């Protein structure tokens, strides 16, 4: 157990689900997506729901409010909240509970806040509507909560609009809003997934603290076992709507019983083994003193230099806004730099895309973060992979077909099954594999991977990383790996470039960068990556406080 409740008794059951079954609609047919789930939650307890996408964790979380998303319906079982049967309750009764006694914190606070109203107005709406306290009292309570959640300038921050505060602050303001009526139960639906690691820490600490202070019961939904280990007393592991394993947070991490849970715990253990000798004098790609901006006002890249060698992986790490994706755009020619040059081999690359010839374009390929938008939904896999073959290599007819099948076997997709499918008929991981095959079809020497695993579930992401590594071993391509996830960096990189606000703060071999002494920003990044240890967050916060003091 990681926490003891601050006050109030833990023990009384606040939420009880028995044999919950939920169906979802797809292609005008109903399929069961949550199968026979039992769930108990006691006052003051934090329950972690973990699983990959499609595991039904959000659906169960929302069902705790007696609600089903459009296109879903609750078909069986019981949901009892503090003695009230939510399935039998009328819409009016449920409406009284929601917001006042059960609150919900959504994944994207930016999307959940109404951009047209100030934060504090949105905070006050719920308690005033439910008649719990008058407006002035609610405002005072809001400021108090903002202070407890360690928001900067708590007395005035509420009078800003959502777009005027940062993502992490917004997520904390959302938590404050959920707390406004002192609910008995809060449902956190992936509250930190969209945040940078350094911001994630602040939000996690704030949430943990506030839940402890008010002795609120909480359901914490996430796909990241390391995160949930910090927050939850008890963890339920879900997969495809079935309960796989349930137990105390420490037990699940230390001694997982089921194979699937073991995989989840072990997920970040993959490490690159091979090392390639490099020819220091002849880098494949050389970026020299590049400065770039969108529109000329704010410099997004300031004097950036880096090198990529043959068959090596260079990881570019940084938080959102650090300019790492912009660097990729400069290298590909989508954004011509204001100053600086890009050399490929010995020749200087033309700055703008339209001045590069097909041969120069062929040697550099790109893989995107979101495979959903990177694949044309109206093209079949055959055409997606076949087009670069036709365009760059002039392959047609049977040659082309043969090569497509060869590429598909390289990315471990069964050609007969998948070649005639549309992207909509593939899973996220399969789509990303098709993107990889499309890049490989051009027979490139350098592949720029822009956050290729961050939209994927952890197990799937690891498969993709292994695939990329295998392809590098076989084909000796170089990767420029843009990511914010240090676990990925540890797994796959040879060299690391750390970026902060458009500048390179540290770069070098993986060992050099990852072993102390670090640059202080690198230190902050490294220490912010959650570990599979329930006490990690508490220890870290304690350590940082000491450091400050």
């Amino acid at each position, binding site marked *: 157990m990681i926490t003891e409740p601050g006050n109030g008794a833990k023990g009384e059951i606040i939420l009880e689900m028995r044999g919950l079954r939920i169906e979802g*609609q797809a292609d*005008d047919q109903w399929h069961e997506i949550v199968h026979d789930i039992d769930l108990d939650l006691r006052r003051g307890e934090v329950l972690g729901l973990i699983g990959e996408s499609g595991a039904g964790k959000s659906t169960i979380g929302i069902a705790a409010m007696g609600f089903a998303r*459009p*296109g879903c319906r609750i078909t069986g079982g019981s949901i009892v909240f503090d003695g009230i049967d939510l399935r039998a309750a009328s819409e009016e009764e449920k409406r009284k509970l929601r917001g006042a006694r059960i609150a919900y914190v959504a994944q994207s606070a930016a999307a959940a806040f109404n951009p047209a109203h100030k934060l504090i107005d949105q905070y006050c709406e719920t308690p005033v509507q439910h008649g719990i306290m008058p407006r002035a009292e609610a405002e005072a309570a809001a400021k108090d909560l903002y202070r407890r959640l360690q928001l900067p300038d708590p007395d005035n921050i509420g009078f800003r609009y959502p777009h005027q505060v940062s993502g992490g602050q917004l997520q904390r303001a959302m938590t404050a809003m959920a707390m406004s009526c002192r609910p008995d139960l809060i449902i956190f639906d992936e509250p930190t997934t969209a945040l940078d690691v350094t911001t994630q820490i602040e939000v996690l600490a704030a949430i943990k603290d506030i839940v402890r202070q008010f002795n609120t019961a909480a359901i914490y939904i996430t796909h990241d076992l390391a995160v949930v280990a910090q927050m939850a007393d008890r963890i339920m592991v879900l997969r495809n709507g079935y309960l796989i394993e349930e137990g105390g947070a420490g037990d699940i991490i230390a001694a997982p019983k089921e194979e699937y849970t073991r995989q989840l715990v072990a997920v970040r253990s993959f490490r690159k083994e091979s090392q390639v000798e490099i020819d220091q004098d002849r880098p494949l790609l050389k970026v020299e003193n590049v400065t770039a901006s969108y529109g000329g006002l704010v410099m997004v890249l300031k004097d950036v230099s880096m090198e990529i060698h043959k068959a090596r992986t260079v990881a570019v790490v940084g938080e959102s806004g650090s300019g790492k994706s912009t660097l990729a755009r400069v290298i*590909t*020619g*989508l954004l011509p730099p204001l100053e600086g040059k890009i050399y490929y081999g010995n020749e200087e690359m033309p700055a703008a*895309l339209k001045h*590069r*010839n*097909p041969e120069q*374009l062929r040697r550099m*390929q*790109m893989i*995107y973060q*979101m495979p959903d*938008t*990177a*694949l*044309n*939904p*109206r*093209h079949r896999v055959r055409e997606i992979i076949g*087009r*670069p073959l036709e*365009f*760059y290599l002039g392959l047609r007819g049977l040659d082309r077909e043969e090569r497509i099948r060869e590429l598909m076997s390289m990315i471990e997709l069964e050609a007969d099954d998948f070649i005639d499918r549309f992207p909509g008929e593939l899973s996220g991981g399969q789509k990303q594999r098709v993107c990889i095959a*499309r890049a490989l079809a*051009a027979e490139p020497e350098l592949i720029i991977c822009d956050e290729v695993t961050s939209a994927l579930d952890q197990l799937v992401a690891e498969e993709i990383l292994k695939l990329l590594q295998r392809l590098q071993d076989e084909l000796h391509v170089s990767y420029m790996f843009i990511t914010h996830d240090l676990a990925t960096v540890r797994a796959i990189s040879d060299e690391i470039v750390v970026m902060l606000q458009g500048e390179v703060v540290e770069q070098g071999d993986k060992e050099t960068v990852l072993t102390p002494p670090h640059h202080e920003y690198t230190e902050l990044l490294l220490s912010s990556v959650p570990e599979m240890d329930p006490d990690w967050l508490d220890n870290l916060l304690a350590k940082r406080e000491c450091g400050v003091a």
Partner: protein
Amino acid sequence: MAVTTLESALATQPSPWASRLAVAAVHFFVLVLFLESLRDNTWWAILGILLIHVYSVLMLRFWSNLERSTAGDTLIVTLTLEYVLIAVLFWDRFSAWPWSAFFGLFLVQACACLVVRFWRELSKAPPTAWFGLVVILLYVLVAATAPIIAPFTETEIVGAEYELWGGQFLLGTDNLGRDMLTRLVYGARNTIGIAFVATCLAFFIGAFGGFMAAALGGWVDMILGRVVDVLMAIPSLIFALLLLTILGTSIPVLIVIIAVLDSTRVFRLARAVGMNIVVMDFVEVARLRGEGLWWVIRREVLPNAMPPLVAEFGLRFCFVFLFLSALSFLGLGIQPPTADWGSMVRDNATLISFVVDDFQLGIMPLLPAAAIALLTVGVNFVVDWFLHKTSGLRDDH
């Protein structure tokens, strides 16, 4: 005999298309033989009809062993045979206008194929959509086979002016003594045909311009956008009247003017839809690959912009159609003696004042107006359904 040889040929199951082609060819051959032998003799004709029925039943039983979607093929074959039956019964008319007859056959088969192909969606369509589809289909069939259906020729004066309904003239005669029904049927052909061609042209111009503006941006977008703004700033009916007065009223000029004026609306839509598509990563991938503008527009943008464009096509067709009728009503559209619904309303407009004394005579000018209204309503029903389907709206209960 043909059947047995075919059976042995198909026993090895070659590609489905080859087998279908073979079957269709045999069909065609047998039917032509029948039609030729039936030309003048009624008894032979009746015998022939019976034989066709027997033949189709046999064919269907034979097919049901071979083809997967028997029901679909049954529908296609049955409709084809029904058409052929009607052709045999009215052989004189059908043989006099072979092109219309063939086009009608093509249409019937195309519709049957489409119904089979999209049966899954169609079976879930609301009754309004079905109504719209049936109305459109009937109009198109009438337009295609106008000379066969119409009792007289388009411009022939066949009786006294303003004769009443019934007898030789099913819907009476117009102000010059031409048969009203005939004029309505030919009007369908002229009005729908010209409106269709004009809409297609408008879409080609507008969609291409809009996608180009979206894909290139910058000054291309600026110039095209401003040109369209200028065109849209002038009331289109007045602009069209002006241009027609200057350029004269021939059908090609009419089509081009309507197409250009209407393409401005298509441009706006195509540009807005295109803007959302060109920012997607897959378009960036194509650009990084070095693809040209034409490829990006045709292969990346267009397929993803189809649903809103198709819906807009339906609506735009209605507007073009009404616009054309309005122009004809004003005397600058399709010129007499060519039959056209808009000008038919105008020609007989004076009769509307007789509606109190003689109802039949009075509603005469409303017949072409009703023809216009019915088609417009039908197209709108279909477009509504299509939009509802593609927008992914779900009726929450």
